[in-house]
Each structure stands twice: as C-alpha cells, then as structure tokens.
C-alpha cells in the first residue's frame, strides 16, 4: 500500500470531514456532561438554559466560522486527493 493508494482511498470518505467538524464541536455536549468537562457543548447547554443570548450568539459565530473554514479546508485538500477536481 503506497501513498498513492492511500490518496485514492481517502477521496470517498474525505468530503464528510467539513460536515463532521460542526457536529463534533457541539455534539460533544453529551460526553462533556457525563465527565463534567468544561467544553463548548456544555457551555452552549448552560447558555441556552440560562437564556444568555450574547454567549449563545458568540458560540453560534464560533461554530459557523469553524464549519466554513473546515469546509474550505475540505475542498482545498480534495484537489490534492483528486487532481481531476478544479475550482474556478
């Protein structure tokens, strides 16, 4: 198995990356609650429960920016994984 094989194999799974990042950021709320980790997911939960709108907005913006950057990153890396793809 060479680097070329790895590149070809990665193509099909890679597009999920950008979407999953958004889920990971906040989907960890459950893990953070169980283990009492002070993470973003638990922060979101407590902000929503206490109607802390400025904090909620800050988390929204943070997640939105991360999702956008992750999607851009996905697209850029995709051109390397599959050189046939070109963005104009």
């Amino acid at each position, binding site marked *: 198995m060479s680097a070329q094989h790895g590149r070809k194999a990665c193509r099909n799974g890679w597009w999920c990356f950008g979407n999953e990042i*958004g889920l990971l950021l906040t989907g960890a709320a459950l893990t953070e609650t169980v283990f009492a980790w002070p993470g973003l997911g638990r922060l*979101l939960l407590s902000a929503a429960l206490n109607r802390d709108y400025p904090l909620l907005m800050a988390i929204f913006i943070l997640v939105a920016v991360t*999702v956008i950057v992750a999607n851009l990153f996905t697209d850029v890396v995709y051109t390397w994984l599959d050189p046939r793809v070109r963005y104009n």
Partner: protein
Amino acid sequence: MEKRERSERWSMDALASTSLIGPPQWQSSFWSRFRRPTVLLGLTFVLALVLVALGAGLLAPRDPFAISNVVLSTPSAAHLFGTDNLGRDVFSGVVHGARVSLLVGFVSALAATLIGIAIGGLAGYFGGLLDDGLMRFTEVFLVVPRFFLALVVVVLLGSNIWLIVLVLSLTYWPLTARVLRAQILTIRTRDYVQAARAVGTPELRILLRHVLPGALPPVIAQASLQIGSAILVEAGLSFLGLGDPNVMSWGAMLNDAQQFIFNAWWMSVFPGLAIMLTVLGVNLVADALIEAWDPRLASE
C-alpha cells in the same frame, strides 16, 4: 463449494430478472441477504419492539409515572427491571420508552425521506438552474450541526416530542436529497427513459413512473440508517434533561439514573441496553438493505 452454488444461483437470478427495457426488477436474491443470523436477529428485534411499542399499555404492569414507596428495589419478580429513586417501575418505563424512540425514529426518517425525494427528484431530473438552486439550498441545510440546532430549538421553544421530530426531519433530508439526485442523474439517460420521452410521456409522469422506482432503493437504505441516528439524538436530548417531560423516554430514564449509578445499576443498564439494542437492530437491517440492493458492497 457453498460459495460456488451461491454464485450460480445469483447468475440464474440475474438472467431471470434481466429485462432490456424498464426499471430494474426485484430479484429473488434480494431476500437471501436477510437469511443471515445477525440480520434475522436485528429484524426480529425491531419487529418485536414495534409490537412492544404498540401494545405498551397492555404489556407494562404499571403506569411508568406511578410512584410508590418501594424505592431503588433490585430487579425481582414484582419489578422485573427494579424500581427507581421514586419507586417507579423501570420495566414499565422501558416498555413505554419504546414508543417515544420508535415514533421519533420512524416519523422523522419518513418526513426527511419525503422532503428529500421531492427536492432530490426535481433537482436530479430537471437539472440546470433548478438543480443548482436546489442543491445550494440543500447544502445550507447539510452543514447545520444537527444536535446543536435541536438543543437550541428545544431549550428556547419548549420541549415537545413533535418539535424534536420536526428539527430532525429538517436536518436529515439533505442526505436523502443528495443520494436520490446522484441516483437519478445516472438513470435519466437510460434508454427506457429516452423511449418513454420519445412516445410523448409527460415529464412529470416519466419522473414518477419510470425514474423514481429505480432510484428509490438507496434512499430507503438511507432512511433506515436515519431511524437509528434519530433515536440516538432524541435519547441524547432527553439525557440532557431536554426531552418531552410528558412522555417516558429512555434518555430521560438515563438522566435520572445518573446520580444513582453506584447504588442502582438497573436504573441505567436497562434503558441503556434498550437504546443500544434498538439502534443496533435498526442498523443491521439497514446494512442488509444496502447490501441487498448493491451486492458490490457485500463484505463477503
């Protein structure tokens, strides 16, 4: 030896079902995928669960919300799965919880599939500007973090089981739409579709009668995966204490059990097992569906 017989049977089936025109026929090898023990186990479990959910009122020995003075009782003949800190029967809770989980899973997967079919079908078949517009619209919904949106909506708008179903179906349909669109793109150029167009069949009729039936199998497989995923999201929300307080759900039972995990293992083990086995069963059936319709994916 067995392998050779099977491949011969498959080729016979393939010959028998080969038709040069018309959408792909259902093959009899389809059901052979369901004869494996793991898949049968999953299918049996899901069907049994549907029966339990339908007959929850008859099956549960007590009202799941009825409190008593028998608190934190270990599993016994009187309380099959023990009782919780308020003396509520855990077995009755698990039985009634099946209703909520299956309702959320099936209804949200069904709604998402219907929206996805409408949007993916139109985008894939008519193409052009409509395709571009609908697919950009789909991508907007695709990147919305599901759990995040569900959590915020439930906290701000109040906890209601139908609200959770609505949020889930609104975030699941883009996957279905994309799968269906990709499928239709390959089918709409087939000869039998061209033939239908040549004899003057109206476009919408071609889409509904000739293109969609052949494109549906992967969509149904996708829907069955969504059922398991939706059940997990609902359980997660209830676990955070954000579930509908008017119905007994497995996630909510786990939330209550958290404080008693060292004193009363039965409070967390039984609802947890119920979630795990349900999602496992649904996913086993989903995998069998995917393999049955696309034997190239078969791991054997």
